[in-house]
């Protein structure tokens, strides 16, 4: 005999059995319709599908794969691939190095790709400043007013870290602007001399 106030985890059987099937069916639409694992689409995990719609053993190869970057863990550029935003410029060189030199198992592969992302972003920010649509530190922020930023966050814990966001997002821009101003002033002084 166990004492009645000892929780289930410390004894053999659950102290409170789950509600009955009838009770659950009455309360929850569709309760138990997938009770049998055979009715669940992803059970078992590996399953030959009758017809995937593919009418090839190996797909036709998409033209234009020469020079396309690929993971060194692949035997070749896959027969189908995305052609959006091909590698270009300094960010392209960094990304190509990541793909050609390091497998996906190496942290260097991913860190180089992250570095490529930052170089890509800053290169295009700088270019945007010479265009009619200069980049801003963050977009869509006026919804803080139109969609009730303060009201929506009342009582939420992420209020705290949302305070950090403006710093993290705008920080590099402020720093960049500062460095830019110093460089311009130095240049101006040097030219005046």
């Amino acid at each position, binding site marked *: 005999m166990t004492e009645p106030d000892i929780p289930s985890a410390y004894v053999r059987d659950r102290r409170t059995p789950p509600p009955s099937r009838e009770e659950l069916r009455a309360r929850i639409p569709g309760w138990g319709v997938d009770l049998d694992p055979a009715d669940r689409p992803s059970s078992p995990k590996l399953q030959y599908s009758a017809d995937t719609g593919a009418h090839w053993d190996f797909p036709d190869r998409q033209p234009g794969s020469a020079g396309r970057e690929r993971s060194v863990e692949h035997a070749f550029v896959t027969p189908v*691939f995305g052609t959006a935003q091909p590698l270009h410029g300094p960010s392209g060189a960094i990304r190509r190095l990541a793909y050609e030199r390091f497998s996906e198992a190496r942290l260097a592969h991913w860190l180089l790709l992250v570095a490529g992302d930052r170089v890509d972003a800053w290169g295009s920010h700088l270019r945007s400043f010479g265009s009619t649509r200069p980049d801003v530190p963050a977009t869509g922020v006026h919804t803080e007013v139109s969609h009730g930023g303060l009201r929506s966050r009342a009582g939420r814990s992420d209020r705290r870290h949302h305070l950090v966001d403006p710093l993290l997002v705008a920080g590099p821009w402020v720093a960049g602007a500062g460095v830019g101003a110093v460089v311009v002033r130095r240049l101006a002084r040097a030219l005046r001399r």
Partner: protein
Amino acid sequence: MRAMTYRGPYKLRVEEKDRPRIEHPNDAIVRVTLAAICGSDLHLYHGLMPDTRIGHTFGHEFIGVVDEVGPSVQHLQVGDRVMVPFNVFCGSCWFCARGLYSNCHNVNPNATAVGGIYGYSHTTGGYDGGQAEYVRVPFADVGPVLIPEWMHDEDAVLLTDAAATGYFGAQLGEIVEGDTVVVLGAGPVGLIAAQSSWLMGAGRVIVVDHLTERLAKAREMAHAETLDYDELDDVVVELKQQTDFLGADVVIDAVGAEADGNALQQFTGPKLKLQGGSATALNWAIDAARKGGTIAVVGAYGPIPNAVKFGDAMNKGLTLRMNQTPVKRQWPRMFEHVRNGHLTPRQMVTHRFPLEDIAEAYHVFSAKLDGCIKPLVVPNAN
């Protein structure tokens, strides 16, 4: 055409882009009629996914009308109304042949660890996505499905990812009758995971989040009990007490890399990007599961290593199951559930933004303003 384009972390805008063209004989071009923003898009938006290139168009949840087909396409015609799974997949590789459509080996040259996904960086293949007027759909004979007459467009677009993923998450949990299931995250994925857990026979479903309107939705739409972790000193201890100190039989992580609730994880993950996101939800799952229990992970994490409590998972004899969702495999059964009203994806839609206002849509969804649960994107609104 008009298309959402990425301009760097926290920055995007709508630009004029070339309309995509047929690049492979089995391609189709689809004119997008309705798209959505997924919790996964936030990982790109926050700059957490390596090799997200400036100019990239996001969007892996979309439906539309076939506008053009390549010469080898047999099953689709111009004018067909189609829903397109978020996976790009070939249907014929070793993995597709066994139903692992999300792990296709023929569509992503950039990585072997992940399959192809529309509009989800070059790490998943470098395909522009569907938050645009037109999108290139590879393997048109394999992925897209005609939208059934009876199906609402808003259900159809959610079935291309969020709803399918919630349902898949519950399956990964290998729920048996009477199980106590804890769902971490009351976003679109978590809400459907909670609904689906009942279909598989759960005896109790507890949803954890800190957004009150989402928790209210979990109670009303998914008939779940809810816990607000902001109101608790320690959510894991609460879950232990509520389960008679056993822990949950099954925990579903429907949060992923943006998880809140631990300052150090938030700072080293989403903020400083020193790890592939914050592992807070995954660590809560490991703690809250009962020994010998199962954790289903559908929350997404980046390829950079994470600070995960692996030792505890091992010591507790947990089963960890996870994947990107093989969407099309879920559909025939899910269509029945939606038709019978057992799953109700479109009840989660709170906002509809014209494509031109997509920068606003991302900020509202990302900061969870205005009770936003699921925002849709409408090209050619007006």
